[in-house]
């Protein structure tokens, strides 16, 4: 009963977006429940990153509505709406001039946190970054930078965290680390929307998965539900993806 009265963390209704004469989103509707991890899967150019940008208020749309925690979000966001969201973009965007500690500390200041020093210290410990806290991004591997970027985004404890291909380009060990971080954030109650090209990652992390193609949501369900609906339980998630998204499914 409690779930029925709780507003959705993210609700996207019939969203249309075009830019430079190109149709990017064509009537996307999506719901992300509070506390769940929703995975967005789709080929390159399907509109995953564009949808994320619109949810974050980083661009205009022509039609449709976006709600964050039940509150309608316009293109220009209120400070309260901004504080709800954290974004980890595809490319690590730590400030190249600052150390990891400074980068996190400045982020805390931007979010108006209190006891920023203590919170920064605690976060550095929580994400095991003690050894390289005084290093600058260029002195770190891509995986370490990713870890710091995710940690930084989680500092103000956003209700919703959006991860755009969080493990792209990472080696298997680093990827597992990121998965652990994502699980840790979910356990702390954060709602997570993530995009990925890795089926294993989606299956492992996500409560539900949406397939996106050419700016449209094709299907949203649990991994098991998708396999059942698309492959009649006779194939993997990847088979279902290939069958539905590329039309080249390995039907068994």
């Amino acid at each position: 009963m409690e779930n029925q009265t709780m507003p959705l963390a993210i609700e996207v209704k019939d969203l249309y977006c075009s830019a430079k004469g190109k149709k990017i989103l064509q009537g996307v509707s999506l719901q992300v429940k509070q506390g769940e991890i929703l995975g967005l899967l789709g080929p390159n150019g399907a509109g995953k990153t564009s949808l994320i940008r619109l949810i974050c208020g980083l661009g205009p749309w022509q039609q449709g509505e976006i709600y964050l925690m039940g509150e309608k979000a316009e293109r220009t966001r209120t400070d309260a709406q901004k504080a709800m969201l954290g974004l980890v973009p595809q490319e690590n965007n730590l400030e190249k001039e600052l150390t990891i500690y400074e980068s996190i500390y400045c982020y805390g200041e931007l979010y108006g946190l209190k006891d920023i020093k203590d919170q920064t210290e605690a976060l550095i410990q929580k994400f095991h970054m003690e050894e390289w806290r005084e290093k600058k991004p260029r002195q770190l591997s891509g995986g370490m930078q990713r870890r710091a970027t995710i940690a930084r985004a989680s500092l103000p404890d956003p209700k919703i965290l959006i991860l755009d291909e969080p493990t792209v380009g990472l080696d298997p060990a680093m990827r597992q680390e990121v998965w652990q971080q994502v699980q840790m954030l979910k356990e702390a109650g954060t709602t997570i929307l993530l995009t990925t090209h890795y089926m294993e990652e989606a299956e492992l992390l996500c409560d539900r998965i949406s397939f996106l193609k050419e700016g449209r949501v094709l299907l949203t369900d649990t991994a098991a539900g998708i396999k059942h609906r698309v492959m009649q339980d006779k194939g993997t998630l990847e088979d279902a993806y290939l069958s539905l998204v590329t039309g080249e499914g390995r039907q068994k």
Partner: protein
Amino acid sequence: MKWIPVYKRELRMLMRRMGNLGYLFSGLLFPMIYLLAFGWGLGDSVNVAGGYIGFLAKGMMAISVMMNSFQQTVISISAARFYYGTFQTLKLSPIGEKSLAFGLAMAGVTRGVFAGVIIALAAWLFFDIATLTIPGIIGLVLTAMCFASFGVAVGMSIKGQEQFSIIVNFFITPMTFFCGSFFPITNLPDMVQMAVKYLPLSLANSLLRLTSWDGSAVISVAILLLTAIAGFAWSVWRLNNYSEFE
């Protein structure tokens, strides 16, 4: 006061860049070379009321304030948008567009004033000339505010480095040479004088050379202030209409 974290962050990054000799030289080298070359080379052989070196030193101060407030602000914002993705962090922070624009502009003002003070110190060190007066300091700060606010707006508006080059070539470079930094505006033909008289750099030069307040100084201050407000309004508008689809 939500702009303060933005300002502190920009300043922290600026301090790091200052440690980089390339950054320091790129913003100060041009006015410094002109000051030393023309100061030593021409010295007081050019006939200007109060002496040419003093005149030139104030002109170079105005140029360095303009370059550092405007160009470095544009470069910093556009690089954060196009190359490093760090502008997203600011845009997504719960600080409001006005505070964000103001914080970025104030960082630009600091850059400009700092550069102006360095030129003033160089003039004092090499030529034993005191360049800063009260109207001059007010002019310096207002000029920095004017160029920094436009720097934020332009940094938010340009779609690539090519557009920035156009702005530099068509606006900044002509202002550098025609707005009274190297010679008095009164030496120019009447038509050109009319065209450049109320440009921000001309007003900056006029305020920097004042020793006491008069009616024209009040007009200069008012125009610089209004221009700074216009630049700030443009910045806020650009931030409200920010798009990563452009």
